[in-house]
């Protein structure tokens, strides 16, 4: 009896040691309960990585997206960060500055041919890389434009401000639509700075001065920004655009059922449009408001936590993920834009002639990352509130001044956010 016991425990110990030959690496991911194939693909990638070598075993833990950033913040305070972190592009500088993350230290030559969005740089070092990017476009139907004598813009020749305004006025005047344009005001949160700050940048303003990142004065309340603000308010005053109380359900279905003529929406919402309208579907570039057409860039990316005891293992995993076949698999599974052109060629939607090919071109031609500063988290919130207030009729100059003051006070309170 005793002998049997001893043998059994010896066998167990042997089993445990052989499994422990692989050092464990923890990975946190934001996509728990994602509606598409994202979560399954991440799990598949982790399994293949674990099987592909014998040094490391990645253990994944997924979180709902809404709780993810809070979980990381709490884990950082408690000193329990995982080895590999999943991070939203514009948030990365904050985490790097706050000491949650360390530079990737990967061979940068593997990033050749990447779109600019999926590479996260802070203070000259790469901290995070992504498998995909996202892009937004003016989504509409060719027939809608042609019936109303509106020119179909191209990437080389996008709409000018006057052309765009005239198009909205024409479409609104037809009476066929509740609103000529749907900007997605129902999507409060990061959508506002992601989707709307490019308009401001196209006017010539910005959320913060990107030369120094020390002030927003003159950038967010300069003449260009005031012009943007007046234009922004006019959209709502003229009734071209549904306001901040827009029903989220209308945002989902408004273009498809003809309530809206044009929709400013991301590539993740593009496939239903193609399915509904077929060849009639159009994904048009952002208008040029005088300073070049701009759309937002950067999505979720992988990085290494500052407290990881095995950064070399984390690095190996991230390099394993940076393969065209994964970019293509995620793109096919989720509809997002693969990080490289060679991967795009392998996908269903972004290959030459594919229904969403135009989004890859838009990303390449117009994408601008959001301000790369740890203060972005606060600046995004301030910008969101300013835009909502102006849409609801607040005085443009006063609102933008107040936003500038709040951003500048925050930069000062954080001693300049470590820019050098």
């Amino acid at each position, binding site marked *: 009896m005793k002998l049997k016991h001893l043998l059994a425990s010896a066998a167990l110990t042997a089993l445990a040691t052989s499994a422990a030959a692989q050092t464990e690496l923890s990975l946190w991911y934001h996509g728990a309960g994602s509606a598409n194939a994202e979560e399954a693909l991440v799990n598949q990638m982790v399994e293949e990585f674990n099987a592909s070598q014998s040094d490391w075993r990645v253990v994944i833990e997924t979180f709902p997206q809404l709780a993810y950033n809070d979980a990381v913040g709490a884990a950082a305070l408690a000193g329990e960060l995982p080895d590999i972190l999943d991070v939203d592009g514009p948030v990365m500088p904050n985490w790097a500055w*706050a000491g949650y993350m360390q530079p990737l230290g990967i061979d940068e030559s593997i990033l050749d041919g990447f779109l600019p969005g999926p590479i996260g740089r802070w203070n000259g070092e790469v901290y995070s890389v992504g498998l995909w990017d996202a892009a937004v476009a003016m989504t509409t139907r060719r027939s809608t434009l042609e019936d109303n004598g509106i020119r179909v813009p191209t990437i080389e020749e996008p709409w000018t401000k006057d052309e765009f305004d005239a198009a909205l006025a024409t479409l609104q005047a037809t009476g066929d639509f509740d609103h000529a344009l749907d900007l997605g005001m129902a999507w409060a949160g990061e959508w506002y700075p992601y989707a709307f700050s490019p308009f401001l940048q196209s006017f010539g303003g910005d959320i913060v001065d990107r030369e120094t990142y020390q002030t927003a004065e003159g950038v967010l309340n300069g003449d260009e920004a005031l012009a943007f603000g007046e234009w922004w308010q006019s959209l709502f005053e003229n009734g071209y655009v549904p306001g901040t109380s827009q*029903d989220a359900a209308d945002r989902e279905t408004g273009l498809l059922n003809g309530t809206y003529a044009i929709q400013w929406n991301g590539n993740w919402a593009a496939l239903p449009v193609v399915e509904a309208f077929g060849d009639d579907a159009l994904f048009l570039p952002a208008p040029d408001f005088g300073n070049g057409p701009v759309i937002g860039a950067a999505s979720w990316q992988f990085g290494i936590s500052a407290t990881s005891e095995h950064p070399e293992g984390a690095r190996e995993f991230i390099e394993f993920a940076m393969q065209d076949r994964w970019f293509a698999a995620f793109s096919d599974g989720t509809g997002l834009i693969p990080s490289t052109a060679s991967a795009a060629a392998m996908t269903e939607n972004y290959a030459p002639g594919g229904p969403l090919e135009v989004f890859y071109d838009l990303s390449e031609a117009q994408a601008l990352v959001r301000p790369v500063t740890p203060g972005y988290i606060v600046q995004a919130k301030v910008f969101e509130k300013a835009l909502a207030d102006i849409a609801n009729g607040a005085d443009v100059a006063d609102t933008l001044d*107040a936003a500038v003051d709040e951003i500048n006070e925050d930069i000062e309170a954080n001693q300049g956010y470590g820019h050098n």
Partner: protein
Amino acid sequence: MASKLTRSNRAGWIMAFPGIALMTLFIIVPFFLAFAFSLTNQRLASPNAVEYVGFENYSDLLGLAVFTLEPERDESGAVVRDEDGEIEYPRLRNFTRNNPDYPNLAGKREWFSWASGENRTVVLSSDVVFMKALVNTFTFVIFVAPIQAGLALCLALLINQKLRGINVFRTVYFMPVVVSIVVVSILWRFIYSPGDGLLNNALGWLTFGAFTPQDWLGNTSTALPAIMAMSIWQGVGFHMVIWLAGLQNISPTLYEAGNIEGANKWQTFRYITWPGLRNTAVLILIVITMQAFALFAQIDVMTSGGPLDSTQVLVFQAVERGYGKQDISGGSTISVILFVIVLTISLIQRYLTRER
């Protein structure tokens, strides 16, 4: 007294221990932490060292200034008027921004203003959003506390009868309390939805289409009342149950005596029921006031403080600043101010309703 508490009462202390420990850990300690943080520049996440800043956070929130704007005058000294005949004033931003002549106005914004003769008197605040949150919170409490308490009492009187199936009514009225406030808020967002929302549809149907649909949550004049109405509906069942407990504590012999004396319904309520509910009323008043000051979830889910700050409230601002904008010291300062307000009001209520 003290000796009795400490000596022959070990069982009592042991039984009280879990409660006292939890309250210390989650209420008393955080309160002192909040007070300590409010005197520093503590951030949620920052590599910078924390510094003591004294009462700067308080003056940033509470700073006020009064300024008189003189109208624009042309060369002859006459007041300039716009097309509608309204007097034109210089932009306030000329004084509040980068103007060394008015250091007391730097960084302040207009809170409200009124005309006094040709001049315009402007009250400026260092933090207009906080001031609006303060006013909105008080407005909410002033309306919700009496209406919710009164409605709850009416419901309690209605269901305090021996009828067949009365438990069904009790359950129905109590149901909203059991449902999570977040779920209730999401449902009410559909009810208040602009255009063809449930409320607009119902009102249109009741008035045979004469009612023009309202954007309940998107309009500065209806957003806060809409949230008040929904909050009253949600919380009324809870207070109804407390009233009911109070009602059932009143001895039936008093009612019998009243009956024999020939008291009518109103006299019965005025001289038997109401005096019997005295302690319950004090409890309900204090509880509703404190709950109303803590208004957060409805705002967070339904409006995020908009439109144009018409639904900003203190707790929402505390959370928004502390977590959203990573400014723990700012959020803590609002919490401390809220604590002082609620404590003051509770003490006043205690004093006014004391046993005389």
